[in-house]
């Protein structure tokens, strides 16, 4: 298979972690702009979504530094620059100088100096390489500041100032141009659906004109874990659902959101929303992908500008509901299981109980990690971090901490419901000789479906 797909951007689809090939020469600055222009664009786009909530957070920090101790990056590196609130320092400075209620004081007396491009360039690593926007810092913060949201806003600024890390910019551009960050073009998607349908002898529904359920997939699944497609189809067919994949709206990942381009974020969400509307879907099922849940479930309507005309569920929520309703029955698995919560689905998404309900139905002995559920330690690969090669060393170190937590449970099997976490476990597991495998909750359900029961 060609790695070039339709654009000239080459991917690395052979390694355990999918991204663009490690660049020989990095281009971490995009576009031709003067320094003043970059700063102007940065500040304009940072301020664009600024409101009462963000201002409150900007005002509330007491510089206690507690957030460092909840951050997987700081915990792994010990570098004070990785303190979560420090990651938005230039924007905090800009807010106080330009927008806060006391801006006139700060500006007149020049108490907060103007942010410079060099400063922003130095902050690129802090905003992209060392933050997955996992939100664990909010839990430890005595002021309860949602730093992850502020980092997201700072990324808006960085994108428009042309200051996105090479690989993340590249996959985002690829996603915008091709509809997928990892080469899963509509044609590739269709081919792989057909392949999985044949391989698993499961009936696939593609581009149906009308369906109650629109099923999305992430590029990681399409390219790396295609069994997810077969598993989803098998369960939906078993339940007798009217469902379909659509080649005009299938990509669940949203690199517009991760990189900080709101227009592209909207464009990516709108493809899904339009496809769902076209077929009259009542439900859109998101695959095992953390940030996809954040993008459509919690930000989709805000991109659309009105409430979504359909329900959005993460696959784990859909499975939990199906179990509750008695629509699927599962064989008992006599194993102990430790579940790794994807931050954007659990802590920041609220679907924490769903996978536990599913595991309960599988009859496994659930073993929580020392800091599990909403307190979960992030795997360090989300937020686009996994695509960035220069972030690898620290990412592996974070995973070392994660492995220790999971291993301490003594569970026989590890399960998660995010394919990005899963590829991080695969990649880091190989690097650190973990010797265990991270499994998919969805595939576990499909493999243990009691087929005769309806």
């Amino acid at each position, binding site marked *: 298979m060609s790695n070039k797909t339709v654009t000239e951007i080459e991917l690395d689809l052979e390694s355990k972690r999918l991204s663009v090939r490690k660049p020989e020469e990095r281009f971490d600055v995009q576009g031709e702009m003067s320094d003043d222009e970059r700063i102007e664009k940065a500040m304009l786009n940072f301020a664009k979504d600024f*409101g*009462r909530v963000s201002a*409150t957070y900007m*005002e509330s920090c007491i510089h206690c530094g507690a957030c460092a101790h909840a951050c997987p990056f700081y915990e792994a590196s010990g570098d*004070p620059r990785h303190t979560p609130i420090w990651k938005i320092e230039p924007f905090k400075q800009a807010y106080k100088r330009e927008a806060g209620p006391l801006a006139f004081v700060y500006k007149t007396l020049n*108490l907060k100096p103007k942010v410079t491009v060099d400063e922003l360039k130095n902050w690129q690593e802090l905003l992209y390489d060392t933050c997955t926007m996992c939100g664990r810092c909010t839990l430890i913060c005595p*002021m309860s500041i949602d730093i992850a949201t502020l980092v997201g806003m700072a990324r808006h600024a960085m994108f428009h100032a042309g200051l996105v890390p090479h690989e993340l910019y590249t996959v985002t551009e690829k996603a915008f141009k091709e509809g997928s960050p990892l080469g899963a073009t509509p044609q590739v998607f269709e081919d792989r659906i057909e392949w999985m349908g044949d391989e698993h002898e499961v009936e696939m529904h593609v581009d149906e004109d009308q369906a109650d359920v629109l099923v999305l997939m992430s590029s990681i699944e399409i390219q790396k874990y295609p069994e997810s497609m077969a598993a989803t189809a098998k369960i939906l067919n078993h339940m007798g659902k009217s469902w379909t994949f659509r080649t005009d709206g299938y990509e669940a990942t949203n690199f517009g959101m991760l990189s900080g381009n709101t227009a592209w974020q909207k464009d990516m969400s709108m493809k899904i929303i339009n496809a769902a509307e076209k077929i009259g879907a009542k439900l859109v099922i998101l695959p095992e992908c953390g940030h996809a849940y954040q993008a459509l479930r919690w930000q989709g309507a*805000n991109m659309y500008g009105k*409430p979504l005309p359909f329900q959005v569920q993460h696959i784990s929520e859909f499975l939990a509901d199906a179990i509750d309703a008695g629509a699927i029955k599962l064989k008992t698995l006599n194993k102990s299981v430790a579940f790794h919560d994807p931050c954007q689905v659990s802590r920041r998404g609220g*679907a924490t109980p769903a996978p536990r309900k599913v595991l309960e139905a599988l009859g496994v002995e659930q073993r929580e990690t020392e800091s599990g559920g909403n307190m979960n330690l992030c795997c360090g690969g989300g937020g686009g971090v996994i695509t960035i090669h220069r972030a690898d060393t620290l990412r592996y170190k974070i995973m070392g901490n994660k492995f220790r937590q999971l291993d301490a449970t003594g569970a026989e099997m590890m399960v998660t419901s995010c394919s990005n976490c899963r590829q991080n476990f695969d990649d880091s597991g190989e690097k650190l000789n973990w010797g265990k495998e991270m499994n998919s909750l969805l595939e576990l359900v499909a493999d243990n479906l009691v087929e005769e029961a309806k």
Partner: protein
Amino acid sequence: MTLLDFARGPAMQIAIIIFVLGIFWRLVGVWALRQKKDLSEPRQKGAWIGGIKGLFVHAWPYKPFVPKVGTQYIVGYIIHLGLFIVLIFGTPHMLFFADIVGFTWWTLPGGVITAVSVITLVALFVALAKRLVNPVQRLISNFDDYAAWFLTTAPFVTGLMTKMNLWPHYETGLAIHILSVWLLLIYFPFGKLMHSFWFVVSRYTTGSRFARRGGMS
């Protein structure tokens, strides 16, 4: 007009005016900002309950974080409680307020107030030492952090000196103590001391936002 007259008269009036108007300006300056409505379908109703819950759950660190920041929270509580006790239950302070509000209340013996002041002062110096020594706090600290520390500490030092009669001239010393409090009030709206208000707003904001979604609180 002696320095004490000045402290008890115009200085107090100026300080209180700046304190009140400054707080009002800062709060309204943020609350007046537009906020786009969240159009996502809430998982559950009653977000405000989550907001109220948020006020309390962040008053003490979650279990996994206690070994890391528990001591820091305790030092923080000592400083805040110390400030409150000395300010409200110190007899001279009560009498000062009684003049304004027109009624008196129960106070603690002077010895207790002195002890509480000393403990608070020790906690303040521990907090400062940590800010200077801890690499994270040292990096993220700015002028405001040290100014707020100095202005909070000064009334305790000057108060203890007054109580222990350590000033060469008692009345001038007392005036300096009172003026140090007014300085604190004047600075209050302009820096981090405003967290006395923001902690409620910020905790409620996160608590209610995530109550809509489920997940963290």
